């Protein structure tokens, strides 16, 4: 049923009936498989991809990528600090990275000021955080495999037979 995961990843709003037809199985089998995936923690959630830039008075208009250098703990490595950081509700994602810094943290907020204050007052003051480097997102072209804000049509074919 790996195909099921691919289909849901492409469009989580396909109905069980549609999925069953496409996968040549029963609705019940689809429902069971989805329940199992949820149970096993393989499917972690379903969300809409929102183009917040088009939403007036959205609370999440500004996003920043923050590069963090931290001192890993002797026993737990980077886990302790990563867990601490992901508890902040401003934080959208946390990744441990290879290369020139350790953690990449995506943060959203209503203004650049708000994010700047968050970094200055809450993130950089955490124990073991050595330095931060904040990059504001200027424009989103594509997110979660979906093209945002684009005049380019999804399908560029014009002349098929």
């Amino acid at each position, binding site marked *: 049923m790996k195909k099921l995961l691919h289909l849901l990843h492409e469009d989580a709003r396909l109905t069980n009936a549609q999925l069953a037809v496409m*996968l040549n199985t029963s609705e019940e089998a689809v429902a069971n498989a989805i329940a199992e995936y949820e149970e096993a923690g393989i499917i972690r959630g379903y969300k809409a991809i929102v183009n917040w830039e088009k939403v007036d008075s959205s609370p999440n208009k500004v996003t920043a990528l923050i590069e963090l250098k931290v001192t890993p703990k002797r026993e737990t490595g980077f886990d302790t600090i990563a867990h601490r950081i992901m508890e902040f509700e401003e934080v959208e994602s946390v990744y441990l990275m290879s290369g020139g810094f350790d953690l990449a943290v995506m943060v959203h907020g209503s203004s650049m000021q708000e994010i700047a204050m968050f970094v200055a007052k809450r993130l950089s003051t955490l124990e073991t955080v050595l330095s931060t480097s904040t990059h504001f997102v200027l424009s989103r072209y594509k997110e979660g495999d979906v093209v945002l804000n684009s005049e380019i049509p999804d399908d560029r074919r*014009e002349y*098929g037979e």
Partner: protein
Amino acid sequence: MDYSQFLNHEIARIPYSGIRRFFDIASEMKEVISLSIGEPDFSTPWHVRQEGIRTLEQGKTWYSPNRGFTELREEICKWIERKYGVSYHPETDVVVTVGGSEAIDLCIRCLINPGDEVLIPEPSFVCYVPMTEMAKGTPVVIETKAEDQFRLTAQALREKITPKSKLLILPFPNNPTGAVMRREHLEEIAEVVREHNLLVLSDEIYGELTYGDRSHVCFAEIDGMKERTILINGFSKTYAMTGWRLGYAAGPTEILDAMTKLHQYAIMSSPTMAQYAAIEALRNGDQDIESMREQYDMRRRLIVDTFNSIGMPCFEPEGAFYVFPSIQKTGLTSEEFCEKLLYSEHVAVVPGNAFGACGEGFVRVSYSYSLKHINEALKRMERFLKSL
């Protein structure tokens, strides 16, 4: 100046392909969802594109031999052998053409003398009749029927045979119906072919796109048919390479010689960048075919199921990427249906009669589109049917 006095009478009389008319209208409209295009929505697999790019970087921009690069012809023969167990000689039995279409044209022009009859099952792709007419042959249409799953039957074939019959076109898997011929159906046809000493142009461009347990059977596989078959295939549908324009024909040496001669004068050689890319596709493209086929298959199931439930009954197509639902219940002609659907719901599909008069009462719907696109179109079509 009146140019009509200069034009060849046949070409002046032959109309443009009816497929294009609807997407010409559609392209002028906004927010149109089209299920009318007959080409893969996938791009050519990256490793294949890369091979094309690499040869450009190396400056390999010259002609190839008339028949195509030897290496490509060898790979084509290996591929046919591997898939269908039919062996051709790369030096003498293959020509690489500008798409399958050129191969069809070469074959018809090299076989047909004025007055020879070409047996053409319809509904089918739009080129066979005009090409026959340009070759001064006589097209003899054989209607296939929904109740036969749009297969060609031996009986229907027999009814159209005359002493002038020379060439049978076998366009399966079929555009626009999605019909396939299984081994037992091909064997029936082979019997008639043998009886009446016919040649067969087997257009198997959709051969790799069949669904279900049983894979495509090549007509040349059937006992005694290799010597009577000009097998036509290409890279457009199999490897999503439509824009590269590359196809081929394989068959008896004497016929392929004649076709190569015509190709030599008309085309010289097929695009070489495409030929290099095609070698890569044949060698390492099996997985690409498989994953595209899986996608098509899921869409096919969804679209067939939805059509059957919203009142556009269609038999289950087992090949290509088209469904051919009946719209007879609506009381509209195919053209009216397509026009109304386009103007009221901005969905473009192709009227069945673009593929022959017996396609009347049906429409061709392509599912070589993303799921999102297909679902939106299906919603609009359901709304349209309810509004009638």
